């Protein structure tokens, strides 16, 4: 066999191996991607995505957003808060009283109050429910606001 023809044959063989291997490998990853996409689709019906804002307000006026936090369906606000922050609480009957969030404790004048974002009015709405009694819905936005107990002004 001539040298050029021989070189050509071996080049074609090498390219064939490369083409088949890479195609198979790409297909392998595509299959894995599709499987994971399917699993994610199944999981999405079992989990909720919520946005949680921790507004330190009167403490130091800083804010901490936890967007698209994934929590199991049926989770309460208390469970979701535990997932994103260090919470100290005290059970009081069937309610959980929040003592502190991320080390910022309630005082006589100020403390943690939670608000919910109302999409229809685009405003924060006050609530009276205990955090461990409020079951979250998908896509909700909640704010833990450190504020004066007497204040009725929503988070800024």
């Amino acid at each position: 066999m001539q040298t050029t023809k021989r070189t050509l044959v071996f080049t074609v063989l090498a390219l064939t191996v490369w083409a088949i291997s890479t195609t198979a490998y790409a297909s392998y990853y595509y299959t894995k991607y599709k499987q994971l996409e399917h699993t994610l689709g199944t999981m999405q019906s079992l989990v909720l995505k919520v946005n949680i804002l921790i507004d330190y307000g009167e403490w130091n006026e800083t804010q901490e957003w936890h967007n698209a936090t994934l929590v199991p369906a049926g989770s309460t606000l208390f469970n979701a808060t535990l997932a994103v922050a260090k919470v100290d609480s005290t059970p009081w009957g069937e309610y959980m009283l929040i003592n502190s969030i991320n080390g910022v404790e309630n005082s006589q004048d100020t403390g943690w109050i939670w608000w919910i974002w109302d999409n229809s009015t685009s405003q924060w709405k006050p609530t009276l429910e205990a955090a461990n009694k409020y079951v979250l819905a998908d896509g909700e936005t909640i704010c833990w606001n450190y504020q004066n107990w007497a204040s009725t002004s929503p988070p800024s």
Partner: protein
Amino acid sequence: MRLQTRQLALFCALAAASIGIQLTPRPPNIESTSLITFFVGVVLGCPAGGFFGTLVMLVNGFLSPWGFAGLIMPFQIVGMSLIGVAGGIFRRYGITGSATRTVFESAILGSFLTLVYDIITNVGVALITNVPIVFAFITGVTFSLMHIASNTLLFGLAFTPLLKTFKTFGEVRKIADN
């Protein structure tokens, strides 16, 4: 296929070495049987290479550390025999050019023949388990790539030194000096 005594002795020694290595516990798909089978094909011709592949894979099918091969064994035999026959074809076209060229050519042949072997065995898996052939190949692609990469390295690094070592045998001298 008619072998002289010395050729037969070489065949048996290589078969024993190949089976010994094949039956030693090792990582999956890292093997030297393909290289030795190809080498036997180069040294002793297509029929001997094909028979060598058949023999080694038949023994391996029963005694492999991974267990009895079962229905996949015929596909392994066909795949390995083809590697032996390919060695004979390589011999027919002669091993010419520099040692570097031989290293590259043997590495490319190693990768191509391993790919062919893997396709054949994956076809076997697909037929046995009744899954689409493409699916079987894609599922086993990680093992195939490991197999191809290791054999490319092994053929590239070991074929030329092996040929030099066995050059003292008359048959090899004829091929190498072509």
